[in-house]
């Protein structure tokens, strides 16, 4: 297949290719044989490294690809589905939205600050390389219990890393989520999502088209950092790995990122370039090979022309380095100087490193001497994929089947349970987190973090884009299929509560090792649940990311399929916020109470960390009706507030609706009464899906009821908003609670700052 005269030969100093070396590269003997077949000869060490990276789980999706094909990906508004740097949808008024979520779990476990920071950097690049200007970020974080010092260290480092990076680049954070559960003890989940807007015509893809066009390396210099990060992200951590993982730590440079962002958008607008891609996982290798693979061309590059940070780097290192803030650009032939001029304005380096060829191969030279020459398509698309049968862990089945009846009564009374749930780190306000993120830069943040979904304005219009990330790992642990469905349902509900129509999702699938049958079971079930919900809601999947091997010493994280949902509000005047507003307003519940306590925060917070029971059932038809009903209400502007019920149940929803924004002393009271025939704990703390608490002026109550009836959604008047400074009063069939707002304030807003200042 390759002209022998020019075939690469081993470099002096290359290690011999032994079965051990192959194994160290994460490749099985069969995979190695396949590589030999593709090459028609023995690969060089450099080529082995390239294959190892491209055929890693991270780039090659070995153990997930077949299942992921089941996901719905099409809708008339989808402009770009999975396979590109980011998905793209039409959001109207001539605008397209690019969005994507990515994990940075392993790097964050080793070095939380840099790991999380570079996670934000990578996801921003995925979005602006599509030609879109990043307008918002979200982050989904899962940590172990906060009473562990190590967890506090990880938590504060991750949050600071996300903040310092995003703030410096000037992208507002509009939302996210944080969970604490021992299921994430040694393996934090750090997922970052980015949204970017562009005029539809500015979309550009990561392709290397046009034989003779020029490859340019742009941005930061290449160092030895993160070498083999893609393989590293695909292996489980073991005790003592901190030391061994050190050389792989990547340091983020948000200032360079900001320059790269501005320069890239200017380059794309200039028309001097035909393709651009982030050098993300597996760096120059994946960007070069993927761009060639997508366009059916080849590329040839000389590593000696790549600007490096350290002397003496080998081709292997240069190809696999994951130094941050770098891009590969394909410049139209003859426009190299124009490209360079734009980059110089932004004080960035650009080096011509090669060109687009017709060879169909990924060819690499070192000062003119060939060191790698691999057919591009087999490299990018030929990664063997596996779908091995899975089996549910016995332990999970028995937890799910556990009889919860003797946990129904709270050991220290209802009020104490109420405060424990509202003040548990999972339910309590995440203000401590999002106040470290710039939430208002660029003056388009219409709904900031703290409500159901963040809303960002499409500049120059009265349209908004809403976004929410959701995944309750306890629910997905106990039942991956309904848990994943629930994550999609909750994300859609959050977006809908603001008045936005759910449009599409991106997802980040964080799991343990796919080599284990019970993990494969979790993965398959979660994908199927996500498929069902997305199909039903007509919210196709436009992209995402799979992160396997989130394990330490054999302990896997909860299966955590994080959903990033996008919604569109056509008229921002119809936006609805989550907090109660005026005294005398009617409070209504949309949806029915079933009192499902399985996998609830109540069990965890009040019953010593119990994770058990069947998680709340998801009825897709009911959810869909609820979404439509809410949108009819918001569209007709009959609501004063809407807030969904999720973690912490009605208790959390009511408290949040009363307290509103995190400024002490604000807030309004409420008097509510439930007539349901349910135990108090099940009623107040059950996390049943399909419910939203709304409020409206008294004069609108009838209209609200009528709209609910039109959509077949149960609608119950449960109470009235009372004046400022009042309390939250709750009456059930068997109990009465009166909770002063300042007490609720201390529990809801005080918990996390209290723990973190210890």
């Amino acid at each position, binding site marked *: 297949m390759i002209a022998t005269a020019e075939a690469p030969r081993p470099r002096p100093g290359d290690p011999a290719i032994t079965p051990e070396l192959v194994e160290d590269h994460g490749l099985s003997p069969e995979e190695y044989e396949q590589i030999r077949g593709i090459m028609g000869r023995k690969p060089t060490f450099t080529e082995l490294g390239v294959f190892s990276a491209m055929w890693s789980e991270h780039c090659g999706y070995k153990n997930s690809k077949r299942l992921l094909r089941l996901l719905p990906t099409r809708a008339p508004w989808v402009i770009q589905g999975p396979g590109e740097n980011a998905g793209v949808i039409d959001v109207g008024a001539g605008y397209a939205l690019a969005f994507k979520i990515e994990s940075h779990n392993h790097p964050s476990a080793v070095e939380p600050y840099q790991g999380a920071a570079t996670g934000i950097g990578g996801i921003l690049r995925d979005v602006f390389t599509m030609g879109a200007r990043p307008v918002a970020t979200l982050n989904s974080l899962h940590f172990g219990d906060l009473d562990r010092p190590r967890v506090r260290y990880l938590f504060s480092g991750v949050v*600071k890393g996300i*903040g*310092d990076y995003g*703030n*410096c*680049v*000037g992208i507002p954070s509009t939302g996210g989520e944080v969970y604490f559960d021992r299921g994430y003890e040694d393996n934090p989940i750090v997922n970052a999502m980015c949204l970017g807007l562009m005029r539809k015509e500015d979309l550009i893809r990561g392709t290397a088209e046009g034989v003779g066009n020029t490859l340019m390396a742009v941005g930061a210099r290449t160092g030895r950092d993160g070498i083999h990060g893609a393989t590293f992200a695909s292996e489980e951590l073991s005790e003592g790995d901190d030391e061994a993982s050190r050389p792989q730590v990547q340091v983020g*440079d*948000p*200032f*360079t990122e*900001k*320059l790269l962002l501005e320069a890239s958008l200017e380059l794309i607008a200039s028309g001097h370039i035909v393709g651009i891609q982030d050098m993300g996982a597996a760096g120059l290798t994946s960007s070069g090979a993927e761009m060639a693979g997508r366009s059916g061309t080849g590329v040839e590059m000389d590593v000696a022309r790549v600007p490096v940070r350290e002397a003496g780097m080998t081709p292997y290192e240069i190809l696999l380095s994951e130094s941050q803030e770098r891009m590969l650009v394909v410049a139209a032939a003859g426009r190299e100087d124009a490209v360079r001029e734009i980059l110089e304005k*932004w*004080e960035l380096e650009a080096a011509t490193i090669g060109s687009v060829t017709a060879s169909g191969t990924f060819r690499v030279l070192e000062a003119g001497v060939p060191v790698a020459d691999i057919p591009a398509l087999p490299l990018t698309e030929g990664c063997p994929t596996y779908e091995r049968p899975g089996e549910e862990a016995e332990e999970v089945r028995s937890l799910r089947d556990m009889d919860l009846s003797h946990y129904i009564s709270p050991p220290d009374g209802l009020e104490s349970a109420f405060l424990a749930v509202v003040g548990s780190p999972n339910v309590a306000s995440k203000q401590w987190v*999002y*106040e*470290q*993120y*710039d*939430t*208002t*830069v*660029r*003056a388009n*943040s*219409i709904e900031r973090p703290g409500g159901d979904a963040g809303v960002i*304005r499409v500049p120059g219009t009265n349209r908004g884009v809403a976004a929410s990330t959701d995944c309750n790992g306890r629910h997905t642990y106990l039942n991956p299929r309904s848990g994943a469905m629930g994550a999609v349902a909750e994300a859609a509900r959050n977006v809908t509560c603001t008045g936005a129509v759910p449009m599409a999702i991106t997802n980040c699938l964080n799991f343990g090792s796919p080599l284990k049958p019970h993990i494969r079971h979790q993965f398959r079930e979660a994908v199927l649940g996500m498929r069902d919900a997305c199909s039903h809601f007509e919210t196709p999947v436009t992209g995402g990311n799979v992160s396997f091997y989130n394990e330490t010493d054999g302990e896997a994280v909860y299966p955590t399929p994080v959903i990033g949902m996008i919604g569109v509000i056509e008229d*921002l005047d119809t936006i609805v916020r989550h907090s109660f507003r005026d005294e005398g307003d009617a409070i209504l519940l949309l949806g029915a109470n079933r009192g499902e306590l399985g996998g609830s925060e109540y069990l965890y917070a009040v019953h010593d960390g119990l994770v058990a029971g069947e998680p709340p059932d998801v009825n897709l038809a009911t959810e869909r009706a609820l979404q439509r009903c809410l949108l009819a209400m918001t569209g007709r502007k009959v609501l004063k507030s809407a807030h969904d019920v999720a973690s912490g149940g009605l208790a959390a929803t009511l408290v949040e609706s009363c307290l509103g924004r*995190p*400024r002490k*002393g604000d807030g309004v009271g409420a008097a509510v009464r439930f007539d349901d025939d349910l135990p108090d704990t099940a009623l107040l703390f059950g996390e049943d899906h399909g419910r939203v608490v709304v409020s409206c002026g008294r004069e609108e109550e009838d209209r609200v009821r009528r709209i609910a009836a039109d959509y077949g959604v149960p609608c119950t008047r449960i109470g009235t908003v009372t004046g400022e400074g009042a309390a939250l009063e709750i009456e059930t069939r068997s109990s009465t609670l009166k909770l002063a707002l300042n007490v609720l304030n201390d529990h809801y807003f005080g918990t996390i700052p209290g723990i973190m200042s210890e």
Partner: protein
Amino acid sequence: MKVAVITFPGSNCDQDCVRSVELAGGSPSYVWHRETSLGDADAVIVPGGFAHGDYLRPGGIARFSPIMDAVIDFGRDGGLIVGICNGFQVLCEAGMLPGALLRNRSLRFQSHDCHLRVERSGTPFTADYARGQVIRMPLSHADGNYYADPGTLAGLEADGRVLFRYCDARGNVTHEANPNGSLNNIAGIVNARGNILGMMPHPDRAIEDILGSVDGLPLFRSLLAADVAVGAGTREVA
């Protein structure tokens, strides 16, 4: 009125300032930091962001950008200059305003709304506010802890050069209302001549109802209405 908005590499709020000036009825233009002239600008805004990444010290490197000589001359001639957030830090580093902005007391980046008490009306920056008015706008910084040596601080107070102070919703200047540890709850000051303002909070993010506040607009309106001709001497702060 023509307003030059300086863009440094790393400026993030230049667009917000441009929009604010537009909404207030002025004509803004961007001036890249490598320029050496402000053209025919009648006023200058040094916007927020992370000029040069805020590496070394916020504003420390930006202060040496080529455009800064023109900005310094402009200020020396009595031209009106507003530095917001990072812009305030740049102006302090350039010696155009006294003092320095240290790391927040909390050591964390802080992004949330704050209340400010307008300490003086009738200045080119606060003409459209009433004295003692309580206004609300976002703040967003890691280094906003205003510091000046005791003599300088006493001078600022004696001359009435503190224009904005952090306060609670009712206008009380309290320790709890101080978000970052600034001495005397200082949020914004002017130079001795009264033509250069630096402030940490963001009036440029409080310019539309839908953003939650319009309390920043009067600042831009005041600026646009102030008739200060560069080089024509001063309009002393009343």
